[in-house]
């Protein structure tokens, strides 16, 4: 099937009335929950998961994608209006976005973000259309050694990009791998780390852990400084960018899109890297670098475009290799598995309507975002200003219902409570949980591919260095690690991540 047939199939899947409506609902709900302060995409998606249960697989996936985009965009809105980034990648948006909002240009900042995101989303989708089938056919030639090396690269990237020290991030990733080991070993059937309870035989549900750490953990952390939470929401005035705005944001959006599309494909924290690099690049090429941080529209348009393009293309490793690039993608895989879909290179050939329907609905979702967010921005601003003491009990109710409804299991609710406390603990000791989340999904995969690779080579570890692709991947990973030890890069990373705190 060529790309054109695929797109036609995609359009016929995505534009059936039901799927269209659910895509819209997903975008709407995703934005509505995503704008709430303190709720990043991970918490948003896990809270909204029950809405996709009981739907046919393609509809559920399309709605999930809608929720994903909605939550991304909702996060940008909160970042601009309230200076509260929902996740690390929208941190750079707060720098200039909130500065613009304080100058009474909130509407124009939001419009720049929305238009930039839409353009980047369109390009990102086109990129998926062209490259995903190629990569999927390439992926079928990958052996276990290549997969193992890619996973190692993904884990190392996520560690290098986590805030705080590398050693801490390494420990978090190892802990995540151990959490992923819990349950029955697929190969030997041995029950590992189950502490004798039958509830753990199927493993810890990934969604439960993510909801606990990000949903409940965030609530606990936010309650810490309840009194100091000032709900200062900037007023939204004129939404239309001026002629000068258009002129100033065109090139940054183009550059941001390019960066985002390329970096999003990287396993690891591609989205985060994309928005930071786009911002840094604009600051470098701008003729007025002194305006950055004080409300330069380029500083909103470029990272938002990069952010969204990367959010799009990070679906590529997930859909074609079954490897999540970011913690959010890891959660999407968790959600797909709940639906009975195993992402991987076969998805394209065995369920083409699912794949192409998703791709087309990505673009439709972006289009809807544009028409949903800008006119409704007044409503979102109202939602943001709901005081936290009303909000957090409702968040707790939604996460509890969400977790319980996955398996109708009370045990899952207790686990979520436990991981909520752990999530709070990690924040207290300054350890970022993103590597843990990613490692929990990637760890068991790494074990499986390592086992297969070594089985084929009769225990000879040199297989990882004899395959050119595997070797190349490992070299990139080693360079990343080396670069963090080099003092010059270390300084750049610290500065970059400092802005994140």
């Amino acid at each position, binding site marked *: 099937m060529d790309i054109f047939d695929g797109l036609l199939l995609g359009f016929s899947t995505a534009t059936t009335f039901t799927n269209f409506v659910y895509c819209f609902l997903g975008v709407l709900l995703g934005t509505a929950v995503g704008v709430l302060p303190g709720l990043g995409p991970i918490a948003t998606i896990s809270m909204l998961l029950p809405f996709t249960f009981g739907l046919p697989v393609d509809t559920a996936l399309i709605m999930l994608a809608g929720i994903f985009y909605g939550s991304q965009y909702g996060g940008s809105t909160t970042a601009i209006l309230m200076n509260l980034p929902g996740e690390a990648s929208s941190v750079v948006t707060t720098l200039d976005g909130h500065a613009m909002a304080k100058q009474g240009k909130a509407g124009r900042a939001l419009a720049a973000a929305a238009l930039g995101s839409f353009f980047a989303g369109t390009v990102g989708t086109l990129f998926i259309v062209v490259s995903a089938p190629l990569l999927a056919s390439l992926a079928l030639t990958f052996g276990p050694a290549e997969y193992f090396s890619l996973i190692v690269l993904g884990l190392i990237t996520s560690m290098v990009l986590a805030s705080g020290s590398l050693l801490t991030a390494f420990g978090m990733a190892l802990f995540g791998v151990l959490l992923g080991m819990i349950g029955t070993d697929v190969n*030997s059937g041995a029950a590992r780390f189950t502490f004798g309870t039958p509830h753990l035989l199927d493993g810890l549900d990934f969604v439960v852990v993510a909801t606990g750490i990000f949903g409940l953990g965030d609530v606990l952390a936010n*309650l810490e400084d309840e009194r100091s939470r000032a709900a200062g929401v900037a007023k939204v005035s004129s939404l239309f960018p001026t002629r000068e705005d258009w002129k100033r944001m065109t090139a940054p959006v183009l550059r941001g899109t390019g960066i985002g599309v390329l970096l999003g494909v990287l396993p690891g924290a591609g989205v985060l890297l994309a928005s930071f690099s786009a911002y840094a690049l604009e600051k470098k090429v701008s003729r007025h670098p002194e305006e950055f941080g004080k409300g330069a529209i380029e500083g909103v348009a470029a990272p938002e475009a990069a952010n969204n393009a990367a959010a799009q293309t990070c679906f590529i490793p997930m859909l074609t290799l079954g490897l999540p690039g970011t913690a959010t993608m890891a959660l999407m895989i968790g959600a797909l598995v709940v639906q009975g879909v195993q992402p991987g290179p076969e998805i394209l050939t065995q369920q083409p309507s699912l794949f192409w329907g998703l791709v087309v609905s990505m673009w439709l979702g972006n289009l809807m975002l544009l028409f949903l967010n800008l006119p409704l921005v007044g409503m979102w601003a109202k939602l943001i200003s709901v005081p936290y003491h009303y909000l957090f009990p409702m968040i707790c109710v939604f996460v509890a219902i969400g977790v319980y409804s996955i398996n109708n299991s009370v045990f899952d609710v207790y686990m979520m409570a436990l991981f909520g406390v752990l999530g709070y603990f990690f924040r207290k000791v300054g350890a970022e949980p993103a590597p843990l989340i990613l490692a929990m999904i990637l760890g068991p995969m790494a074990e499986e591919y390592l086992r297969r690779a070594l089985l084929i080579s009769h225990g000879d570890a040199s297989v990882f260095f004899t395959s050119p692709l595997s070797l190349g991947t490992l070299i990139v990973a080693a360079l990343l690690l080396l670069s963090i030890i080099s003092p010059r890069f270390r300084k750049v990373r610290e500065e970059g991540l400092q802005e994140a705190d």
Partner: protein
Amino acid sequence: MKIGQDSILGLFFAITGIVALWISIQYPLGTAGRMGPGFFPVGVSGLLVLTGIGVLVRSISSPGELLSAVKWKAVVMVPAAAVAFGLAIEPLGFFLAVLLLLVLCAATSVKFRREWKSALGALVFATLCTALFIQLIGLPIPVLGTLFK
């Protein structure tokens, strides 16, 4: 007492690693060519122990940031409310479990007041949740639990 973030985290890593290592050496190790169920966990938990020790050593050489005060009320109450939800959902059913969780959570806030308006709000919210999740989405959870049957 002033405790550094790193000392606590290092201890957490080291202890978790030791426990995991102790559990995983009881699984068959296998060989590199035929990895047993213990092979990978032993490696990972061993590394975790080393990382924990590394973080501890770092905390001694450079204390780093100190642990800020823990607000125990929220840390205990909110997870306890989730556990209460878990305990209640089968015997009491969806509606009452949601109400219980909502009120217990809200009680954690410094802004919590016992007044009829909030009580009414909680009732309305629990009703809306029931309508949304059970009637509209159709989650297979009984509205009223086994206690009422």
